[in-house]
């Protein structure tokens, strides 16, 4: 069921329409006469999507978001976003009579006294973890295949903002039950904001309505969590998807695939059926997790009380990198002077992570500026064919992963029987040195793989068949690669370092020098794709 959508004549494919009677036809006609929906169905239904598992990751995020909306709506029926004090009187014995906020008590009621409430809570939380994880994996796919290049730079930025908003949604939701764990998390946020010079204290007093924890924060976070943030997320998802339709989907290099076409299955009927089924599969996986695996057992954590902090207090996974940065920053960086307290142990992680996030967000523009490439790209890069980009990505992933792992430093220490200090120092080294190591290793691996591809194109596969020639010489017969496979191996564009040229006024600007330097860094080490001439020359060469 593979067709090719030509960009020049996309709609001619549906020239002939089948005529059939019956209820379906009548109903369709009724709707069409009143909505003119057939134009949209005709256009969208013939929209072609390429088939590859990695193209489904964004859909996973979308579907888990739908699950979050459904389960979250259920939870709002029973949750009370209030910090007024009550004595718990539900059915969980070890908390009976304990003083807590109405938010905590209602979350416990959802867990123990509302039919299906605990399942919905767990489904909501697991779906949230899956949502952010799927976004992360989707972003990695987009990055490493170069799908963010023109014309998709803006969609990368939208997607990245969605990632940040998803984290914000997660954190506000994590804080709502007002249990011990979430209160500890809020206390860390409070401390981080207070660490900002001049304005920090003002901001937290504004946020918490006075000194931490106050009695306002749960209500405020609730408004953000169920109203403002979801509204922005839904709007941005819509925009994100509109762009996907407008840009058409990218495709991996392969025989017959060019920047002018999309090879794959049209949405109707097969892709829509698959996608619809896929929604239920994702839903099913989340339901199974919610059914069988405890998540966020607030009944263990108990109500928030500023004095206790449990061992193993961590944020949900997607905030882990920030928690890890706070754990890794060496002590002794704060000082009092210049009319205030300067907490560089907070400011350095804050600024460092802010810069990291900013760099990832604007990476498409940085790369476009360095390459100077203004063409549209609809055929993806295989990661090996963009060695420097892949290496930068590997370095970024290592940096993030080291910070992320550091958030679990205490768990690593107890479960691998090592010292806490050893774990922290190792992670500190990994955070700084790991990215460099990852960069060089990834780049070398990419270049080596490119060389291997080149070798295969020119000389074919080693067949393992040894032949003795009349002269007594032994050779191994090489199996030439067929044209279909060869396409994939040679279809990539080669970039060369930019030459510095004087501008109209005969000058060479600093910007140009920088650009040329970066370009050299990007493209100095490169393996050119095999040219047609080379292939022809090598023909007599297939031993």
């Amino acid at each position, binding site marked *: 069921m593979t067709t090719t959508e030509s960009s020049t004549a996309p709609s001619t494919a549906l020239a002939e329409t089948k005529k059939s009677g019956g209820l379906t036809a009548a109903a369709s006609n009724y709707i069409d006469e009143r909505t003119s929906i057939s134009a949209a169905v005709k256009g969208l239904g013939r929209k072609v999507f390429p088939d590859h*598992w990695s193209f489904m990751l964004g859909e996973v995020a979308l579907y888990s978001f739908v699950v979050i909306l459904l389960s979250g709506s259920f939870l709002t029926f029973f949750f009370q976003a209030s910090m007024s004090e009550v004595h718990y009187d539900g059915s969980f014995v070890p908390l009976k009579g304990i003083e807590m906020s109405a938010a905590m008590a209602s979350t416990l009621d959802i867990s123990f006294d509302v039919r299906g409430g605990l399942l919905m809570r767990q489904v909501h939380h697991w779906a949230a973890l899956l949502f952010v*994880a799927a976004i992360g994996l989707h972003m990695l796919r987009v990055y490493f295949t170069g799908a963010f290049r023109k014309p998709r730079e803006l969609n990368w930025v939208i997607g990245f903002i969605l990632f940040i908003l998803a984290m914000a949604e997660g954190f506000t939701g994590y804080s709502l039950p007002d249990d011990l764990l979430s209160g500890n998390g809020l206390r860390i946020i409070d401390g981080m904001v207070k660490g900002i010079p001049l304005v920090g204290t003002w901001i937290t007093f504004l946020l918490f309505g006075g000194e931490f924890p106050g009695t306002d924060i749960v209500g405020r976070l609730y408004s953000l969590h169920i109203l403002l943030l979801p509204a922005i997320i839904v709007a941005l998802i819509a925009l994100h998807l509109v762009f996907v339709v407008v840009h058409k989907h990218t495709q991996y290099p392969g025989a017959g695939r060019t920047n002018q076409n999309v090879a794959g299955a049209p949405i109707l009927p097969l892709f829509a059926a698959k996608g619809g089924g896929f929604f239920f599969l994702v839903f099913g996986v989340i339901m199974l997790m919610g059914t*069988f695996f405890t998540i966020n057992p607030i009944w263990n954590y108990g109500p928030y009380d500023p004095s206790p902090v*449990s061992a*193993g207090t*961590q944020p*949900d*996974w997607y905030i882990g990198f920030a928690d890890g940065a706070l754990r890794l920053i060496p002590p002794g960086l704060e000082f009092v002077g210049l009319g205030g307290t300067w907490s560089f142990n907070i400011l350095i992680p804050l600024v460092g992570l802010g810069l990291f996030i900013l760099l990832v967000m604007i990476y498409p523009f940085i790369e476009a500026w360095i390459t100077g490439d203004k063409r549209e790209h609809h055929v993806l890069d295989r990661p090996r064919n963009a060695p420097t980009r892949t290496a930068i990505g590997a370095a970024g992933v290592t940096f993030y992963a080291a910070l992320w792992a550091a958030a679990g430093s205490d*768990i690593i220490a*107890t479960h691998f029987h090592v010292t806490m200090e050893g774990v922290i120092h190792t992670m500190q080294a990994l955070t700084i040195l790991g990215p460099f190591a990852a960069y060089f290793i990834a780049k070398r691996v990419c270049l080596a793989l490119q060389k291997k591809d080149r070798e295969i194109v020119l000389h074919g596969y080693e067949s393992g068949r040894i032949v003795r020639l009349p002269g007594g010489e032994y050779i191994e017969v090489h199996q030439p690669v067929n044209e279909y496979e060869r396409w994939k191996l040679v279809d990539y564009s080669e970039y060369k370092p930019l030459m510095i040229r004087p501008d109209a006024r005969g000058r060479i600007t600093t910007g140009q020098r920088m650009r040329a330097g970066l370009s050299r860094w990007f493209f100095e080490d490169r393996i050119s794709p095999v040219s047609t001439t080379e292939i022809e020359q090598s023909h007599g060469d297939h031993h």
Partner: protein
Amino acid sequence: MPETKTSKPRPNRKAGRRHPMASVALIAIGLLFTGGAYAMFSTSTARAESDLSSQQTIDEGKKLFAANCATCHGLSAQGSGNGPSLIGVGAASVDFQVGTGRMPMQMNGPQAQKKPVQFTEEQTRALAAYVASLAPGPGLPDASLLDAQGDAAAGGELFRINCAMCHNVAGAGGALTEGKFAPALTGVTEAHIFEAMVTGPQNMPVFNDANITPEGKRDIITYLKYLENNPSPGGFALGSLGPVSEGLFLWIFGLGAVVAVTVWITAKSN
């Protein structure tokens, strides 16, 4: 024991018109009687032994101490370069350290690890009696405090305030500095929990009766036993370790399953 004798010939008789389960039931009743009688007998002897002030027990403990503990703790428990003085640590301390297998210590390290218990209950009590005879110290807890029938809610609150920062809210354990750690509290007997609070073994602080009343300790034990005996209402607890194990599970199994589904859906049919 006459019960055993009466129960023995029963299975040999072929089950003719009798109900097939009759012999099984008889054996069960017989065993119940025997076991009950034995249990009564053994508790009564345990009570007799628990008299830590009897000179005979102390003497026995002294011998055991000289043979097994004196190398590090000194011949008269005065301590040495390898082990602290035990004068005044009390019977509770000995019962905890020896009763959980931490003493005799396997090797020097950040802290003494739990291991299979090396002494019988009788021997442990003898050692406790000897150490208790050297100077006054915390004694063995009264059985009424160990029944786990206190107020679980009050115990939970005390636990979160006093214990959770090291042992984790669910008693799953946690890391301390320099390779030390607070162990998980599942599977620890009521008496050992109580003794640990009273004596503060290793890095643990002492929670004396002014700090947490004996009833408070009983409540804490009640709470811990509640957690141990009632499985997590939400399903598998994933080690009760909090968001780290949840995140790991999600990435490996949740996302793993979903990616497997994507591969399955997009696989080309042959």
